[in-house]
């Protein structure tokens, strides 16, 4: 369908490894591939250093000392919450690599706080500082960065993926990069919900991977919602463990809470009753610490003259989809390879079930997964290319977009309005709590019917190689993502991890498997066995670092 890449690239480049996405996973992938001796280009839809969910946030990190007991405790802490779908080998590898990478960050200049004995304390990262440093490290390792350069499609031949093509949204120039291997690190999908830093995360990588023939996994674990003031983008849920929830008249909302009580908030909002919060459980001496540690949590309050420790403020639940959900591109081995030769996935773009199963509180595991899987994928991609040798240069690749791309300029307003309609239509299916948070066979089937229609309509559209075309591809990616989500959710007839079925409210031991999905015009779902192992002893979890 797609036009020949060679015909339109105004900027045409060649490299060994192309990394798509400049958040934590992408930057670690780029550094790790370069360290193996590969020539690397990193393209970011926005700006490597400020793009994505991590850059504007503070995040905890799953950094655990390598003593056996501490590691076992760490692995057990979320195993049951995740519906026993995590795998111990993967948790071990990620704990090891996270430990190594965090120590590296300390040596390379990240300003960790110090403990009373003067040792750096490495349990968290401040997003702006972390990502500014990562950009510097990427540049220092000789990687070429192209900012504001979203991908429109992957390029491939019969032997596998061999590059990508896109457009620079600031200059309007098309670009095309031929590469021996591609790492997708485009993040998850939050459906343009304006959750902090998430509007660049529209599931693009899932669509690209599926167009290349890769599978997805765990897409039913895609209904994360964050507590957030109604007027704000700041989705920092951890602090709400110090909140009480009230109705407008000041009476307490029974059962509402930041962890298990989020459903209560959702049900009230569904019934048209606004819920308010106040951080009145925070001990007095903790308040200054809370104020300093999350630099942007208080920003919206301060700028509105609200004291969140004392004043009630209205809250909502903002969709974070697969950014905090765990589903994503299925990886088939320890190098984070997909089943398509030359294609790798890392970070939120890849499934995080391997270490989290079907649930994750936030920061801790997610940031660990990003930096570890990024490193694995970068190294894997580099080794793959170096093995290919010179044969990579003579490949004749074509574009894989399922929508036709055209160089002729868009018809301006008309296609822009059409894209906005598609986005709105997808949001209408995935945002409502009574569709996505509380799932039923009826609701899911109805949504799938409408989403299939939306996909069909977009599939037939021609997309221009322009900033507007990028938005059209985002709409298609969100539509495809919603379809994999709901087909998978329909197939999982139980409640497990974050996936809640109103019509199947309990966990079913017979469904302790993964759900693999894929397909574009025809979506399919199948089951895959989870590596069988003895479930670790459940312990009283230590105070969770459900970040941020």
């Amino acid at each position, binding site marked *: 369908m797609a036009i020949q890449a060679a015909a339109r690239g105004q900027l045409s480049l060649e490299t060994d490894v192309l990394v798509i996405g400049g958040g934590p996973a992408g930057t670690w992938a780029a550094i790790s591939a370069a360290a193996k001796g590969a020539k690397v280009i990193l393209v970011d*839809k*926005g*700006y490597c*250093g*400020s*793009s*994505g969910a991590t*850059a*504007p946030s503070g995040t*905890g990190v799953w950094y655990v000392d390598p003593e056996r007991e501490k590691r076992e405790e760490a692995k057990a802490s979320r195993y049951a919450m995740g519906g026993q779908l995590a795998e111990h080998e993967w948790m071990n590898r990620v704990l090891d690599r996270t430990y190594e990478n965090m120590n590296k960050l300390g040596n390379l200049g*990240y*300003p*960790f*706080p*110090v*403990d009373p004995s003067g040792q750096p*304390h490495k*349990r*968290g*990262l*401040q997003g*702006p*500082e972390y990502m500014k440093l990562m950009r510097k490290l990427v540049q220092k390792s000789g990687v070429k960065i192209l*900012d*504001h350069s979203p991908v429109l499609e992957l390029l491939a031949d019969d032997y596998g993926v061999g590059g990508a093509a896109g457009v620079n*949204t*600031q200059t309007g120039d098309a670009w095309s990069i031929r590469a021996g291997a591609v790492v997708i690190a485009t993040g998850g999908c939050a459906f343009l919900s*304006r959750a*902090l*830093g*998430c*509007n*660049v995360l529209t599931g693009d990588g899932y669509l690209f991977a599926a167009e290349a023939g890769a599978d997805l996994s765990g897409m039913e674990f895609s209904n994360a919602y964050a507590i957030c003031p109604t*007027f*704000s*983008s700041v989705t920092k849920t*951890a602090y709400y463990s110090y909140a009480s929830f009230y109705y407008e008249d000041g009476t307490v909302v029974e059962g509402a809470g930041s962890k298990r009580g989020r459903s209560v908030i959702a049900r009230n909002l569904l019934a048209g009753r606004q819920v308010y919060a106040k951080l009145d459980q925070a001990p007095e001496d*903790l308040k*200054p*610490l*809370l104020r*300093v*540690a999350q*630099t*942007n949590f208080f*920003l*919206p*309050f*301060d*700028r*509105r003259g609200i004291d969140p420790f004392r004043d009630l403020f209205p809250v909502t639940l903002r969709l974070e989809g697969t950014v905090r959900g765990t589903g994503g591109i299925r990886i088939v081995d320890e190098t984070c390879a997909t089943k398509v030769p030359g294609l790798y996935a890392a970070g939120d773009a890849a499934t995080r079930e391997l270490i989290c199963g079907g649930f994750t509180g936030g*920061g801790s595991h997610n940031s660990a997964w990003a930096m570890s899987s990024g490193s694995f994928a970068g190294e894997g991609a580099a080794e793959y290319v170096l093995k290919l040798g010179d044969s990579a240069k003579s490949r004749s690749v074509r574009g894989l977009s399922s929508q036709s791309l055209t160089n002729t300029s868009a018809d301006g307003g008309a296609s822009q309005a059409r894209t906005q309609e598609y986005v709105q239509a997808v949001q209408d299916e995935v945002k409502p709590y009574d569709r996505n948070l509380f799932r039923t066979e009826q609701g899911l089937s109805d949504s799938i019917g409408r989403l299939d229609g939306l996909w069909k309509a977009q599939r037939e559209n021609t997309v221009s190689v322009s*900033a507007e075309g990028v938005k059209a591809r985002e709409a298609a990616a969100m539509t495809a993502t919603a379809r994999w989500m709901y087909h998978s959710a329909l197939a999982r007839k139980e409640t497990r991890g974050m996936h809640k079925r109103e019509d199947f409210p309990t966990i079913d031991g017979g469904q302790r498997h993964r759900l693999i999905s894929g397909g574009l015009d025809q979506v399919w779902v199948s089951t895959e066995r989870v590596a069988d192992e003895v479930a670790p002893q459940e312990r009283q979890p*230590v*105070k*969770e*670092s*459900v*970040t*941020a």
Partner: protein
Amino acid sequence: MIEVVSQSRCVSCNQCVSVCPTNVFDKGEDGIPIIARQDDCQTCFMCELYCPVDALYVSPDSEGVMGVTEEELEQQGLLGGYREKVGWGRGRVPVAKHDYMYQLSVRSGF
């Protein structure tokens, strides 16, 4: 959403045009960036943080424009508040190093 680019403070470095993840700004004819696509703003505050002269103001409302003016912001001392908290800028210490980070981590796990 981003609401203010202070004409008097801006030094036309166009850092905000570069760092905005959703490409909200355009370079202006006179060198001062223009808020060209306000609807695309995701209220992530990154432009404000990267502005070396505190010329930008992102209002906290992510859904609509509040209509603040530069004069009000100057009076209330709101320009540059975020950058100061993060500890960026000459002579400041990054908040990442702050002792409270350690203390909170030990007490609360985050």
